């Protein structure tokens, strides 16, 4: 029964149903605030998809992700506020810049392994924060950037309004997910997964480690940059705190709770946790007393995240249904146990 329900969720039509649901959401939503929260959750989800590429697929825990998110936001913010660029050219510039910087950082950091890579990137993220905070001539320092351009709708729509902006973000999210799905099934995605399983083995299969890892890293920072740029267009005020390491940890939490390395996990995790935090607001300063342990419990009991646990379960069930029981045959006897009397 449950299995049937599960297969329904895995049915290809289900994702179209989800898209339709997302399209209709602003109509269901009881107010604009809910649409606004959903739009911001989508923005974060895009960044989390980037993290999924480098961490979920390629197995490198990148703790500079929040930094790249902020770089995307700052590129767009500074170009539009200080240099008068309009949104879309600045948006493209933000993508290019985060990709380029991702390339530079990747080339240096990806030589490191495991925890060393993680902490190294943690420091890179912190350096990005410090630079945004201290390099006042360029970034306005702690004062932040105001008057950021909103996405221009070319006279057709007004993206400063919440609902149109929601659809804009949704479009980007669908694109991000679509690409991620394609990637994961493609040879390139499989190459990334092979690297996650072990450098040595991957190399013995003729995979160029540095090139592939760097590509995954650049892709992930570009996703982060895209999300950051959208974020800047949404809030239209950014400050160095947007590069706070906390954001990276938040994104990892979303990823882990949803299901690392899965296609729908990042979205589910992000939207889920964003709403949980919103609904715990009534607890005010005490909400972390609930949220902290909740996080621990999720990690202990759903280590592969909701989507990952679900997929494993489904696979097991389908194997059971396909081949009810596959007895291994015995080598020496006819399979009955020893009549032990000792």
């Amino acid at each position, binding site marked *: 029964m449950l299995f049937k329900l599960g297969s329904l969720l895995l049915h290809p039509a289900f994702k179209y149903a989800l898209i339709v649901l997302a399209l209709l959401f602003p109509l269901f939503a009881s107010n604009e605030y809910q649409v606004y929260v959903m739009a911001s959750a989508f923005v974060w989800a895009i960044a989390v998809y980037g993290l999924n590429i480098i961490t979920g697929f390629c197995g490198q825990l990148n703790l500079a992700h929040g930094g790249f998110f902020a770089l995307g936001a700052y590129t767009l913010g500074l170009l539009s506020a200080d240099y008068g660029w309009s949104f879309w050219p600045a948006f493209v510039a933000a993508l290019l810049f985060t990709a380029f910087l991702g390339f530079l950082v990747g080339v240096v950091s990806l030589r490191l392994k495991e925890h060393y890579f993680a902490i190294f990137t943690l420091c890179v993220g912190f350096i990005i924060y410090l630079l945004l905070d201290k390099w006042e001539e360029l970034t306005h320092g702690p004062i932040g950037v105001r008057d950021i351009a909103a996405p221009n709708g070319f006279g057709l729509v007004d993206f400063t309004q919440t609902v149109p902006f929601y659809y804009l973000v949704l479009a980007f999210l669908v694109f991000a997910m679509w690409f991620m799905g394609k990637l994961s099934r493609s040879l390139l995605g499989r190459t990334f997964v092979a690297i996650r399983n072990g450098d040595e083995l991957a190399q013995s299969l003729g995979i160029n480690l540095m090139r592939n890892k760097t590509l995954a890293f650049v892709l992930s920072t570009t996703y982060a940059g895209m999300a950051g740029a959208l974020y800047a267009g949404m809030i239209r005020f950014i400050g160095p705190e947007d590069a706070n390491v906390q954001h990276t940890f938040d994104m990892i939490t979303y990823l882990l709770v949803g299901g690392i390395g899965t296609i729908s996990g990042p979205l589910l995790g992000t939207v889920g946790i964003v709403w949980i935090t919103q609904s715990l607001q009534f607890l005010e300063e005490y909400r972390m007393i609930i949220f902290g342990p909740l996080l621990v419990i999720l990690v202990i009991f759903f280590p592969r995240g909701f989507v990952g646990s679900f997929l494993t379960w489904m696979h097991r069930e389908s194997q059971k249904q396909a081949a009810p029981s596959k007895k291994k045959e*015995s*080598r*020496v006897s006819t*399979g*009955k*146990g*020893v009549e*032990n009397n000792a």
Partner: protein
Amino acid sequence: MLQLKNVDVCYGSFKALNNISLSVDTGELVVLLGANGAGKSTLFNTISGLNKPVAGSIEFEGKRIGGLKPSAVVSSGIVQCAEGRKLFPQMTVMQNLMMGAYVHRRDKAGNKKYLDEVLELYPILKEKEHQPAGSLSGGQQQMVAIGRALMSRPRLLMLDEPSLGLAPLVVRQMFETIQKINSLGTTVLLAEQNAFAALKIATRAYVMENGQLVMEGDRETMLGNEQVRKAYIGA
């Protein structure tokens, strides 16, 4: 001395041991044969307390030890020399051996005596005593592992595939010392893939398949059994 009755062990939903009943008497050298994944290591780990049985009982010298902590099992006299040696690679050979005496750490004089015995068994270890264990050759590491297990003063020594990955020459020495240890009074339970060599020194043997014991017999019966010869010894 050791008695298992109807023991079941599960990894999640997978039943790795199914209704295992087995016994080892004092002074015996019992061999456990079985293919990869048959459950030999699981059985050893269960006796050692690293895995918890979901059903059945394990008794050692009349005391129930099923479900005890590994440290308590070691104190009670069952010591395992596990697959893959599990040495402390940066500690010296001597430190490794002394860690083996951990449960008897208060009895300094006794430990000295056992240490001398081990070094007599493996004189090469005396030469290497100040080298980090990780720098030794595979065979020497295996000696340290067995020596360390002996330092825990086992009455029952369990050896899990001690010949794994060792050169034939070293393998032969290994079996010789196992026989020697046994003849000096330690009961031995030995899991092996190298069935012929193992059976040659065994008192008795069990065959394990897919988590079940499927055959039992003394050395001659086993060596004479056609199916055993075919499956575990080779042509």
